């Protein structure tokens, strides 16, 4: 059948074969390799969520939700956007000295609940009477 085909037909078939071998198959193979790696990472995250008893995927950072959650453990919550892109937020809270463990727990599971990270992985503490004022910068992922 190939022999009775025109030159253009044969050329197209050969080009198709070359594209399949050198482009389509490598892309397909790359995709399936990546998807395997992706599933492994997803399962690691899932394990972490199970460990901390979190039942939902991390949500995109929303100021209102985050503020509400933070207010349940701290007072005087101030969230100030940093920069024009509004990807960074300066967080300033006051927390009772006795609730510092609760705050640490909050930090520990932060990335499992919100797609954020603490910029520089740094927390600043300052004592103010019975409270501790904590500052840190949050960045959206």
């Amino acid at each position, binding site marked *: 059948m190939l022999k009775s085909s025109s*030159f253009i037909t044969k050329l197209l078939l050969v080009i198709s074969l070359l*594209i399949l071998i050198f482009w389509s198959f490598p*892309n397909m193979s790359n*995709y399936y390799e990546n998807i395997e790696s*992706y599933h492994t990472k997803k399962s690691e995250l899932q394990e972490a969520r199970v460990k901390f008893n979190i039942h939902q995927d991390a949500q995109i950072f929303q100021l209102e939700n985050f503020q509400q959650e933070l207010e349940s453990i701290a007072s005087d919550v101030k969230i100030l956007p940093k920069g024009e892109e509004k990807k960074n937020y300066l967080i300033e809270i006051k927390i009772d000295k006795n609730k510092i463990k609760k705050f640490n727990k909050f930090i520990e599971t932060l990335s499992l609940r919100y797609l954020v990270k603490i910029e*520089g992985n740094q927390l*600043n503490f*300052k004592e103010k009477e019975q409270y501790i004022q904590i500052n840190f910068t949050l960045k959206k*992922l």
Partner: protein
Amino acid sequence: MPNRQYITITHYKEREFYFLNHAIQTQDGFIPKEIEQFHESEKDKFIERIRSLQSQYTYTQIASISLATNQTISEKEDKTKVSAKIFNNNYAIQDKIDIGNIPTTLYFSPFTILYQEYKDKLDNKLTLLIGYFDRKLYMMFATEEKIHQSWVIGTRGLSEKQIAIRVYKSMKAYYKISYKFADHIEMLLTDDSPKLLKVLREELSLTILPTQNSIHNLLHHMAGEQERAISSYIRSSLSGHTSIVSNHQNDKGLNRNEFTSLKNQEMHNLEDLKLTNSSAYSSSNIEENLSFFDKVKSLFSSKDSKPTVRHTLLAFVPFLFVVGMGSYYIVENQKLLKEMELTDAQLYSQLNHTLLASTSNDVFSAMGKSAELKTATISNSKIALKGVVWGIEPLRNSLNDLYPDGEFIIKPLENFMTEFSFNSKI
């Protein structure tokens, strides 16, 4: 005064010789005269002899045969080439006819001669018709409905046994493309070769029915009847379908079908018939001992090709499919990479936050009842603490247990209290 009998003059060239014959056509068949032979150096004499015969008889046709190897069978008539209709939608096609300036009015393809010879024997079973002309095998696989495949194989220099093997190989080659074997073989030999007949019978397992006839006789037969000649001779698309008109149906000297006058013959003379488009077609010979490279190369030649828009469009289907498939995976992969990047960042952040929370817990635990923090900077790379201490040694021990390389400094204050500072890398 020219004779009013109908005469067919036949000629062909084999190697360096021209062979010429003429026959008187009668109602009961043709009566051939002696075959004349001319060396190619005597071409003028040869042409002069043809002209002489033409002038002797009023009604003549000059028939010749195309022994070119680049003849193919096609289902369509190609207007840019010369073609002869075999039957139905089967045409013998070749690039051009180039017979020099030798007078010729009817030019036949071995394929059409083969068909005319065996058409009554064709049925729905596959028959391999082989014509052995000028040491070439003109082969076609045919049923009563169509010619399925054709090949021309050169055999010059081969022994009879090798020729028989080539016939068998061509059958196998056809089987590879159609999964059909010919039910039987009819073979028309134009050379007197009893040995070849014997070997073919011995070598080929299938029933082979060879018959022998000379090229001249075959041409006389083809040109002998108007209907047969009209339906079979090679036409040039450039000159249009020239018809052979019967002007003298009831002429006394010719009781059977009659043909054109000498004047008309000149009109049909093919001596100037040349087409320029010769590169598109090549022969469909089966070559022995083809190398792999030759086979690949042959795939790209246009042998027997009947290129249609449909075929070309169909070839776009796999092309579009592989391009589409590649593009799909590229797009999906890019989406996946973005997802993976986010997942990676989330996992990395989670790890860092766990470490940060742990460090913070450790620091506040170390303070215990021994000290109180005033300021602290806690990160995953360093800690810097400052506060008031009551139990210096317990605090120092706790901090040194956690961070042995840390620097613990105490400073007495005026109000009898002691300030401490602690810096360490993690």
